[in-house]
């Protein structure tokens, strides 16, 4: 990305500023930015210092919400559950997507394969959640019918704490893996064929080629894809809200669900805002760390 403005020769000739036109063209987007992004950010931070409940006037409560957050075991539980979800979701998804992308690149360039793999992405999380909610139903779902017919025990996928988060994570892998694979696939296509030919000449096996050529050259793309998917993954809500609503006990009560219930079920908008700040801090820290670790800005291609 380049932030240097493009010097326009003709503009120099005219030597007049484009300010009036620029203001006109930026106005709608700028209003959008200021009203629905920048101001809410400031306002949200402000709300987190109040006991606002939306029905009676807010009162300033200082750092009480933040002290409560640090002492709130449910918050830490939700944070932990969310991290667990992200690790399973992103881990499985990235590995699978990488595999699929490499196969789409080296095995078949078929458009049909690429289209099919993307199909789940076209339906919403809610649809994906409902379909698997039905498939994995403990008594009636086909998933357990198959297990039983294979002589195995039924697995209460969404109703026991050991399996609930991995199950939800995998449902979302189902929906997103094709999308991620296509992003990686696009990255693979930017790797010059000459790099592979050189490796072939050197007598490298495909396995070696994968680790010595594909992975290093893919790293910048992979890093960007990871940042995007991880940030999305942290905001998991739809699937949990539709299938388990946080249960059993609190084993799938992810942060965004906790925040939603706090605001809309328990009228604690102030505390919910503080929780949102907490989630934002987590996201910013992770983005920053990841950016540093993977040096997403660099590209080995140059």
């Amino acid at each position: 990305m380049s932030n240097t403005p493009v010097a326009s020769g003709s503009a120099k000739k005219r030597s007049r500023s484009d300010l009036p036109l620029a203001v006109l063209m930026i106005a709608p987007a700028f209003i959008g930015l200021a009203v629905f992004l920048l101001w809410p950010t400031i306002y949200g931070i402000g709300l987190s210092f109040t006991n606002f409940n939306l029905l009676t006037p807010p009162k300033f409560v200082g750092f009480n919400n933040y002290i409560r957050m640090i002492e709130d075991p449910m918050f830490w539980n939700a944070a932990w559950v969310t991290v667990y979800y992200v690790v399973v979701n992103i881990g499985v998804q990235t590995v699978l997507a990488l595999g699929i992308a490499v196969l789409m690149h080296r095995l078949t360039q078929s458009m049909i394969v690429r289209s099919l793999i993307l199909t789940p992405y076209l339906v919403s999380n809610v649809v994906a959640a409902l379909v698997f909610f039905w498939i994995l139903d403990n008594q009636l779902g086909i998933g357990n019918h198959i297990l039983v017919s294979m002589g195995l025990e039924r697995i209460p996928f969404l109703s026991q704490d050991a399996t609930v988060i991995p199950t939800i994570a995998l449902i979302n892998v189902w929906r997103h893996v094709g999308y991620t694979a296509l992003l990686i696939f696009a990255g693979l296509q930017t790797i010059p064929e000459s790099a592979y030919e050189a490796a072939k000449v050197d007598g490298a096996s495909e396995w070696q080629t994968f680790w010595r050529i594909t992975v290093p050259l893919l790293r910048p793309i992979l890093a960007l894809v990871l940042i995007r998917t991880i940030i999305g993954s942290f905001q998991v809500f739809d699937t949990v809200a539709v299938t388990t609503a946080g249960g059993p006990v609190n084993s799938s009560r992810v942060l965004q669900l906790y925040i939603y219930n706090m605001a809309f079920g328990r009228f604690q908008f102030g505390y919910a805002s503080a929780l949102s700040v907490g989630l934002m801090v987590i996201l910013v820290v992770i983005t920053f760390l990841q950016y540093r670790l993977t040096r997403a800005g660099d590209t080995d291609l140059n």
Partner: protein
Amino acid sequence: MTAAAVSAHTVGSAKPFPIGKVLAWTFMGIIMVITIVPFYWMIRTALSSNAALYSGSSSLLPANFNVGSFARVFGIQTGEAAIAQGGSGQSIDFWRYLGNSLVVASLVTAGQVFFSACAAYAFSRLKWRGRDVVYSLFLGGLMVPAIFTFLPNFVLIKNLGLIDSLLGISLPTMLMTPFAVFFLRQFFMNVPVELEEAALLDGSSKIGNFFRLILPMSSAPIATLSVLTFIASWNDYFWPLMVSYSDNSRVLTVGLGVFKAQTPQTGPDWSGLMAATLIAAIPMLVLFALSAKRIVNSIGFSGIK
């Protein structure tokens, strides 16, 4: 990723054994099956009767074939008939939700892409003081996670009196997203300056250049952005869930949630629920079937730029 690696190995070398290739295709085949089977199961369940489903039928074909579920979803079955077939007897109007989703997604896509393009043009091709400062504000906006703006935006939309309206759902993303501005600016910068200068010499105005030169030359990235925005908007759940309260503004995703929540005391109306999910999915699947190539390429496109 051993399967992938092994396969790649075989393809690349002089294929001594087809085993690697067989394994790779098997892996790909399994992925395809897992991808597609849930869709089939949706159809199969929607065409089954609840009574048959509850008696534990695991037939691979529709159990006790009937289309009552679709009648329930479109609200053309009487309450009594619906209850008798394991529905809630609630009126639910999926035509309306379909229309609402279409309006919201179109409004968001058209508005976001157009206004973002305007801004991107001003950031890439116009010369004015303070440009970099304002642009960095937009880049800063890229860092704010959506979750953080939901609650304050809800208060805002409420104060604007737009709760439970389609405009209320659309507004926050209708004017821009930082990503859209950033994305389009990158492309506008690549349009050769000489073309624009030549047009200016021919008497064209800057605004004329935007419409006649920049937009047409960037039709591919604009199409990409439109497709991605449309998909995202169509599938959004969290924000519409907060804003919509009645059929006036209920979009498909929220309608589905309501349909599920109307679970009768006799247990979920699985057949109706799957019919509803199918209806929610079909428009996108049709769109996809018509332009799979464009969409698939679009997604790759958005990734590398």
